[in-house]
């Protein structure tokens, strides 16, 4: 009993618990449909028309589709921790970076090309660089002008997508070159987005492990004044977090654009900021800033994707899916809220007392 209790206190309990719950729903669903009970976890191989062997299955699908949110969750975790606020512009910035990338590759005003105007790498780097600039802009407003994060990032939330649309001359720009599709399709037998996300996570994890970046960010997030007196440049650290968040949005934007080999600026990254914030919360991180747990956010991100995929598997239409997601969000928020926590604490205390009385 006490073991279970100490387990529920661990920060990773919530995300892992939710993940398992989602998987359980899948297993039950499969049994109900007469499928093999573990078909959610089944990974099969398939040969594509071009002769490549690739992996597929629902689990692969979750990992694949969840890549963007997972990448965004890295930056969002840092932003939440350092500034006790969220960057709601990431979805728009994704679209903007994808838009710039495609515009450069196709040339302004051209909507459909089958060869590059500039080298691919230039387009990608420019798109990501613009996203970093957006992050720095957000960070400057928050850290140096003391504007509330929600308000500061609201600017690019609305303007980012619009600028992207302008860059693309209000059209969908198609880049029909196979190498452009690489980031959004397959690398060998695995979907490339999985590898991109894994690489981002790995680099972040290594940086957190071998440098003191985590300490810097968290010290500022927990007590900005005390951190300053102890020699930290709080404003600079917050700015860096927003810049990294922009970088993540840029990478996610390029992946998302590559998936559909076109800059559909109206739809790329749409509402993605909500999933990213939710991933952080689901990871057991306080949206009030301070201590953070990156692993939690990442698991949170894939859990959200698992929920979405499950809903589609359950034949819920994509228009209705947000309703069910909302229910999940409400549940999580309620479970995490202080009164509910206190209630469960009291309940277990009562049980213990009753036991002692016996």
């Amino acid at each position: 009993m006490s073991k279970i209790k100490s387990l529920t206190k661990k920060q990773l309990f919530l995300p892992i618990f939710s993940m398992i719950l989602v998987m359980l729903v899948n297993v039950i669903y499969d049994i109900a449909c007469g499928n093999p009970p573990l078909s959610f976890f089944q990974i099969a191989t398939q040969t594509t028309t071009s002769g490549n062997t690739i992996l597929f299955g629902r689990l692969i699908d979750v990992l694949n589709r969840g890549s963007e949110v997972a990448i965004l969750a890295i930056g969002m975790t840092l932003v939440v921790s350092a500034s006790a606020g969220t960057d709601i512009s990431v979805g728009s910035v994704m679209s903007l970076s994808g838009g710039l990338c495609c515009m450069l590759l196709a040339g302004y005003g051209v909507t459909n090309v089958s060869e590059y105007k500039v080298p691919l790498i230039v387009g990608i780097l420019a798109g990501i660089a613009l996203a970093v600039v957006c992050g720095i802009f957000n960070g400057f407003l928050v850290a140096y002008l003391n504007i509330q994060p929600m308000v500061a990032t609201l600017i690019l939330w609305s303007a980012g997508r619009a600028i992207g649309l302008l860059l693309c001359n209000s059209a969908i720009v198609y880049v029909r070159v196979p190498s452009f599709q690489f980031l959004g399709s397959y690398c060998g037998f695995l979907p490339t987005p999985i590898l991109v996300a894994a690489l981002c996570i790995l680099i972040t994890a290594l940086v957190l492990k071998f440098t003191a970046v985590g300490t810097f960010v968290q010290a500022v997030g927990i007590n900005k004044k005390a951190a300053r007196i102890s020699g930290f440049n709080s404003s600079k650290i917050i700015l860096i977090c927003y810049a990294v968040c922009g970088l993540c949005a840029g990478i996610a934007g390029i992946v998302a654009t590559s998936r559909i080999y076109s800059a559909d600026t109206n739809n790329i990254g749409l509402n993605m900021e909500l999933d990213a914030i939710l991933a952080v919360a689901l990871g057991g991180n306080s949206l009030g800033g301070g201590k953070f747990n990156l692993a939690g956010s990442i698991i949170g991100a894939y859990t959200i994707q698992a929920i979405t995929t499950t809903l589609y598997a359950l034949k819920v239409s994509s228009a209705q899916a947000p309703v069910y997601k909302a229910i999940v969000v409400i549940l999580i928020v309620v479970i995490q809220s202080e009164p509910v926590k206190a209630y469960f604490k009291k309940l277990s205390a009562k049980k213990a007392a009753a036991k002692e009385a016996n």
Partner: protein
Amino acid sequence: MDSNIALTMRGICMTFPGVKALDNVDFTLKKGEIRALMGENGAGKSTLIKCLTGVNKFEAGEIHVDGIEGPIINKDTMDAQKKGISTVYQEVNLCPNLSVAENLYIGREPLTKIGTVNRRKMNQMAAQLMKDLDLDIDVTQNLEEYSLALQQMIAIARAVDMESKVLILDEPTSSLDDNEVEKLFGMMRRLRDQGVGIIFVTHFLEQVYAVCDGITVLRNGTLVGEYSVEELPRVKLVAAMMGKDFDDLASIKPEGINDFSKVPLEIEAKGLSHPGTIKPFDLDIHKGEVVGLTGLLGSGRSELARVIYGADKAHTGTLKVDGKEVKIKAPIDAMNLGMGLLPDDRKAEGIIGDMSVRENIVLAMQAKQGMFKKIPMAKQIEIADKFIDMLQIKTASRETLIKQLSGGNQQKVILARWLATEPDFLILDEPTRGIDIGTKTEIQKLVIKLAEEGKSVIFISSEIEEMLRTCNRMAVLRDGMKVGEIGMEEMTQEGVMHAIAGGDHHE
């Protein structure tokens, strides 16, 4: 229950992970009595009080309150409040961004007929309450506009205003100056005469004898005894708290250098100022010298030190460190020049609450090394253990969150944070506030030891006695201005008082 008794606690036991915080403690409080609850840091005073107010759940024992049948267990502070037990905690626990009036009536706001908060009435009531207590405060201002001292007074006013049989004051005086302490004592005596029982926790021994009727002493979570003030004079009280004979605290002053004129300067400040807090001042500090800053609370003691350190940026003047002119834009610049600052507001500017003792100790060192050069874990552990041992920090482990430590132990952690950076010049702003007498002496000895090693120190304290014991020289401040200096020969309790109060000499 005896009709004379306001409160009894019997056999209270309480354990924190790794610490037996209370072991079978009894406590009795009569009506119309002010009883001091004494003990060193970590003795369990705050814990006992929190058991009483329902913040902590005790494992064994009984609490009885006058007028209520049978033993009571409070669910939380609100519940305790309903039973007539009001508390003011060690650290101000109000909302800085609400108005004073809102803070006073939070949770019990007067309502209008339609059920919204009646602000006019609330402000009127609050203003009246402030007037009754002789406090000059605009109740519509945000709480944060006022000094820590006034915030503390407001917290007390809030507790006093609610019909109480038992009033608990957990180190309310640590941030008050003499004048304000006197006001508080007036308030306490008035309440005592109305029959309220008051539990008073303080680290200032003279206050015990100024206002209390009885003394209860705790040590290491156990009861040492319950006494009347007459039967426990100062020396015996200290002995009871420390569990050993009183070693003479006055004898720690070194024989060392008294004439610093030939010693090189560490700090040379000329015309430094910060608008609104401190007017231009000059200050020289020699290597190995301890300079005290004295003056009333709010006279600019902390502010002067903060300008040198760059916590507040200097607007005018020049600063030389070790003979070289330097520009300090932010604390990190000062740190790189070998400075450190232990701030007076421990909660707001000292501790990183959600980090462990270890992380808090290596924090400044890590900041100096920069973001990308992490101090290896083995080294962090070594440093943390060294200081936990050296300063005798009472903590369940080095990985315990600092916010779970008692105030004095938190202070030691912050001190360790600076000692770990091996500074040449250390600014200590109220380093012994809220700390027990034994540790106080340790810190004073440490300051003197640092000076002997050739390090310079600015020492700020509200207790003149302890400044006299540690400082070689003192600078006097009044209304945000440095008005003079006091050398060794004039450094007596009286001389300092005169200088602070102003008058003809020392100007």
